[in-house]
């Protein structure tokens, strides 16, 4: 049934009350069977909880926001969201949304997995989604854990960085020094070394507190420091801090690589590419599935198009055919299992880079 597009054509409609929805459904569909099904799904709006980094970080959380907006635009549905301010609010927001009947409750960031594990059993009717987090599906059957293979995507952009670099020195600037970001860095270093075994990868983390996700000034300083060490391509996996990295790289006329969302447009012609992590697609699909969301564990890698690199008009002049051929070949090989990219979080070590 395609009631989404029909309603979308008439502009967004409130679907908060059952009666309203009934009349709409009668109008558009009329079929009694679909009516019963549809009304059930539309009763519950989805909810979205952003991690502490904030909604408009132009990166991870914003990708989730874009996914939710795409859901709203395409289906005419509505959703509610919250930007967390404190640790204690994690569980609170989950409970309040579940009690108010929102379903599914989608969350971003691995820090939500523990709170979800502790509340999920109290609300068996509600489906919870943790993006980047992992909740044991045997213990909590109403939770969907969505994980991304960031190391695979980072490997590809690492290859591109090494091919674009003239000095043979490529940089990595991470946000907060946590295993997830080391996973990005490790994949990136492996990719760079695969292209150029003599390449030198400089990796820096912005900080050790959550403030490191939103410190563009420090990102800019680290960029300058890496440039002075000879780096001419710098990959930022640092949330809002990355904006400072991209800005300074553009100012200093070197190349940068964005992360999570497509950030090529921020400085056209100066951002080599962006490592895409399709959080938007994951959020949108979870919201569209509504109450019928299938729970369990989902790993989105290159094969599922969950991660990848961005190619658009803004960076087309920077990406040579040779680069594209090599990266696409590597992508196929990773999917086929011929190249194995080491995952830092699997054993907390990295063969290509020391931290």
């Amino acid at each position: 049934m395609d009631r989404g597009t029909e309603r979308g054509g008439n502009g967004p409609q409130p679907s908060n009350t059952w009666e309203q929805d009934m009349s709409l459904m009668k109008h558009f569909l009329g079929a009694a069977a679909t009516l019963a099904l549809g009304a059930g799904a539309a009763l519950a709006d989805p909810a979205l909880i952003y991690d502490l980094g904030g909604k408009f970080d132009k990166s991870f959380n914003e990708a989730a926001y874009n996914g939710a907006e795409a859901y709203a635009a395409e289906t005419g549905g509505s959703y509610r969201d919250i930007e967390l301010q404190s640790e204690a609010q994690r569980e609170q927001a989950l409970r309040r949304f579940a009690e108010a009947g929102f379903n599914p409750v989608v969350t971003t960031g691995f820090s939500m997995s523990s709170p979800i594990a502790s509340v999920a059993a109290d609300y068996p009717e509600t489906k919870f989604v943790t993006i980047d987090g992992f909740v044991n599906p045997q213990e909590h059957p109403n939770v969907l854990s969505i994980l991304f293979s960031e190391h695979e995507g980072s490997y590809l952009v690492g290859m591109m960085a090494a091919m674009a670099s003239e000095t043979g020195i490529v940089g990595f600037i991470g946000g907060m020094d946590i295993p997830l970001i080391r996973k990005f860095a490790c994949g990136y270093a492996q990719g760079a070394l695969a292209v150029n075994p003599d390449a030198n990868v400089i990796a820096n983390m912005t900080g050790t507190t959550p403030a490191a996700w939103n410190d563009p000034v420090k990102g800019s300083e680290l960029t300058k420091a890496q440039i002075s060490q000879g780096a001419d391509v710098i990959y930022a996996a640092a949330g809002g801090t990355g904006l400072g990295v991209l800005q300074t790289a553009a100012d200093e006329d070197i190349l940068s690589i964005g992360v999570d969302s497509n950030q090529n447009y921020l400085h056209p012609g100066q951002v080599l590419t962006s490592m895409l992590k399709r959080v938007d697609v994951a959020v949108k699909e979870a919201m569209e599935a509504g109450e019928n969301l299938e729970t369990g564990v989902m790993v989105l890698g290159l094969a599922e198009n969950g991660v990848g690199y961005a190619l658009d008009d803004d960076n087309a002049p920077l990406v040579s055919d040779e680069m594209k051929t090599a990266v696409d070949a590597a992508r196929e090989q990773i999917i086929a299992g011929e190249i194995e990219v080491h995952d830092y979080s699997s054993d907390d070590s990295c063969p290509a880079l020391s931290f």
Partner: protein
Amino acid sequence: MDKMPAWADAVLVPLISILLAAILSAIVILAIGENPVDAFKLMVDGALMRSSGWGYTLYYTTNFIFTGLCVAVAFHAKMFNIGGEGQAMIGGLGVALACLFIPFPHWSVALFVAMLAGGAFGAAWALIPSYLQAKRGSHIVITTIMFNFIAAAVLNYVLVNLLRPTGAMDPATATFPAATHLPTFQDMFAPEGSRLFRGSPANVTFFLAVLACIGFWFLIWRTKLGYEIRAFGHSESAAKYAGISPVRITIVSMLISGGLAGLMALNTTMGEAERLVLNATEGAGFIGIAVALMGRSHPVGVFLAALLFGFLYQGGAELALWTNIPRELITVIQALVILFTGALDNMVRMPLEKLFLGMRRNGQKG
């Protein structure tokens, strides 16, 4: 007499400050096209009209009582301890180590030992800055604030490299054993099957915080040490002349201060999260400064100010949940209260003093 009555100083000044902050906040909310009356109602509804709302309000209050008392002790000795944040972080490490590695038979024993551990770790973190202040004259404001960053880095290192369960993404310790679970308000007050206080984090440490307020009062106004701290705070040279050692008082009052900050971790780490997360303090150490200023470094004042900030935090969460007021503006509202009650205190006090003086003169003439 050039002073206004004590009741005006303790009650009227903070109330007028809060009112001013509220008016400014209302203007801010109006400016973004929301209704301030509705927003206020939502805050009150969410923070005070539901049992779980109270559970959150009192949870935040507990944090702010501890950090408020922490700053207040130091204030009595005329020192400005900005390091409550770091001391609470390291206190959390102490609490976590005790909970993780000692097999406790019962939560009450666990609470007692964790209290000692958290207090000792927090105090130890205050020791170096206080020693540097007492012996070397390095200013306590600078050293304590720098120690906040060191604490964050230490905690990050310990969590990421030492205490994190293998394979876990989150820089946090494993969950504490069930025996260390502190009774929450739900466990204590909710009858079987009722939803009273369901899911809210307030726990038995709230009563510990109240006890700390009473102990604080006793310490400062009823003991020799308290007298020495106050004497030192009023005049270092006079205290020295009276045979009070400045070095000893500086160090001892900072140890008490750091210990109180460390106790805050009982609430967040043992009571709420039941594991040590990286971001466990989230600014409560700094809110403590506002709480101590607003509470005039008196335990009753600290308690009430902590309650107000607890309300603001929980009410702010409700605003974030159910309105489109962005998170940043909620912080603006909280900041306005801090600004008016803490920093702009004299703006209200001085005109008020003049007013009272004028009234008194008129009274004398008539």
